[in-house]
């Protein structure tokens, strides 16, 4: 019963706004703002009208959507491995941080889309260029949050670890990593949305296929419903990534006092 109430509370306003959007767009009849009732069928037509043998998914899904999603996740995963690994090491070294602080702040301040032309020149057209752009953009939140998390390990834990003679790997993997995980997850969620942005941007700028490329193509053909379909899809992807990550985070960090409490009171 409470689950149903929660579900209604979460989605009521969303549904209402879509309905208002429907009414307003129908009344205005602007060609640039097709009503949701046109966008929905266009989405089905674009992606879900394939043969049964291909799970009812169209060629567009296999040729454009899945590769784009794959690149996003791969780029994000590479950024996560680099960010967490490097972040934990740097976070535990005051000397390294003293030297690298400015460099990190500088690197993070560069708007990642600006690096797309650079990767285009150095890596050429294709997946490596896109991955490069995604990794460059997505690595910062993970890296900086991992550094922060590793630095937050208190002096008593350092003493405890030394008193029990923990080895380097036991210390990093058994104490620093779990202590930093809450911060790391915050960084991971930030960076997956950045990865999604850079996937689209890199495909908008220079690509022969992919989600961003299809979005541009729809716009060029004045297929407004199709363009909106891709915009909605990006929203759905971002939302789904976030929900999935939150579920993983909730499971991994279930030891946190606040979490169990929140779960119990839900």
């Amino acid at each position, binding site marked *: 019963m409470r689950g149903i109430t929660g579900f209604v509370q979460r989605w009521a306003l969303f549904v209402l706004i879509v309905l208002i959007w429907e009414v307003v767009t129908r009344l205005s009849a602007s060609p640039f703002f097709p009503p949701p009732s046109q966008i929905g069928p266009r989405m089905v037509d674009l992606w879900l009208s394939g043969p049964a043998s291909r799970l009812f998914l169209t060629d567009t899904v296999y040729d454009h959507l899945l590769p784009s999603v794959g690149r996003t996740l791969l780029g994000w995963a590479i950024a996560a491995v680099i960010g967490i690994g490097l972040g934990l090491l740097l976070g535990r070294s005051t000397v390294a941080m003293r030297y690298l602080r400015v460099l990190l702040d500088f690197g993070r301040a560069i708007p990642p889309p600006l690096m797309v032309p650079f990767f285009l020149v150095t890596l050429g057209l294709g997946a490596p260029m896109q991955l490069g752009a995604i990794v460059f953009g997505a690595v910062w939140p993970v890296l900086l949050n991992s550094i922060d998390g590793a630095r937050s390990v208190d002096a*008593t834990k350092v*003493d405890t670890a030394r*008193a*029990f003679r*923990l080895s380097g790997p*036991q210390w990093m993997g*058994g*104490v620093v990593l*779990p202590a930093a995980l809450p911060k790391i997850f915050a960084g991971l969620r930030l960076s997956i949305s950045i990865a999604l942005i850079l996937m689209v941007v890199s495909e908008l700028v220079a690509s022969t296929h992919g989600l961003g490329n299809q979005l541009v193509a729809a716009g060029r053909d004045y297929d407004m419903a199709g363009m909106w379909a891709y915009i909605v899809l990006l929203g759905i992807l971002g939302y789904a990534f976030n929900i999935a990550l939150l579920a993983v985070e909730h499971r991994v960090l279930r*030891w946190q006092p606040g979490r169990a409490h929140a779960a119990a009171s839900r």
Partner: protein
Amino acid sequence: MPTMLEVSGLGHTYKTKDGVHNAIGDVSFTVNAGELVCVVGPSGCGKSTLLRTISGLITPTVGEVLLHGDPVRGVPADLAVVFQDYSRSLFPWLSVQRNVEFPLRTRVSARAERRERAREALEWVGLSAAGGKYPWQLSGGMQQRVAIARALASRPSLLLMDEPFASVDAQTRFELEDLLLRVRAEHDSTVLLVTHDIDESVYLGDRVLVLSKSPGSITTDLDVNLPDERDQITTRASSEFVELRSEVARLLHGGEPATRPSPSVPDTAANDRFLAAERAETHSTSDT
């Protein structure tokens, strides 16, 4: 009784912005196997520094620490430490059982044996039923018991405790004190406990070492002539206890030892060296 710990001429200075801070002066004493020795001192007298140098967490500027004859360089394998701040010392992401198990990885390779040892140690401190819980689900006193179990699970030959009961309420402190006395009697543990609580030092200790104001050095080495069986109510009410605690209090406030030749303040260190030498002599003769 064989000597477990031998501290001689120990001193430590920190470099600070405005020069050097002399945390501990010239500390010498010994702890025999099976003894529970309390170090009591005013706040800021370098108690924690003393404990950290003995445990090998920091290297002393001068002097030497010997654990059953071997010089301490880095934390020795058969030494365990219980810290005051149990909530920070325990790992919040591990269950109570795993908290006790985790540090055993460095000395016990078989997972099953680690699990068994941790279970056993939790039983010693009366927490058999709490193994599956997370530390934050327990009260402060129970958390400190987990920390004690974790230290005991490695079966250390010397247990160091840094103000272990300073962060719990009075009632819990009494319970934990009795728990410590019970556990060390059952396992014949050697314990060096640092505290600022005079009553606690007398109640727990076989001996009480009184530390002077910073730079700390030991002014008195007091034998506690109370029966081994101690009770929070009757022991604390006994005239011997009251006498001892007033004596420690008097010494802490700069008083001079009643039974020993009274050293003037600059001579404290010399007096300590003399006493240490005297003790070393008696021990070496009793050892052989």
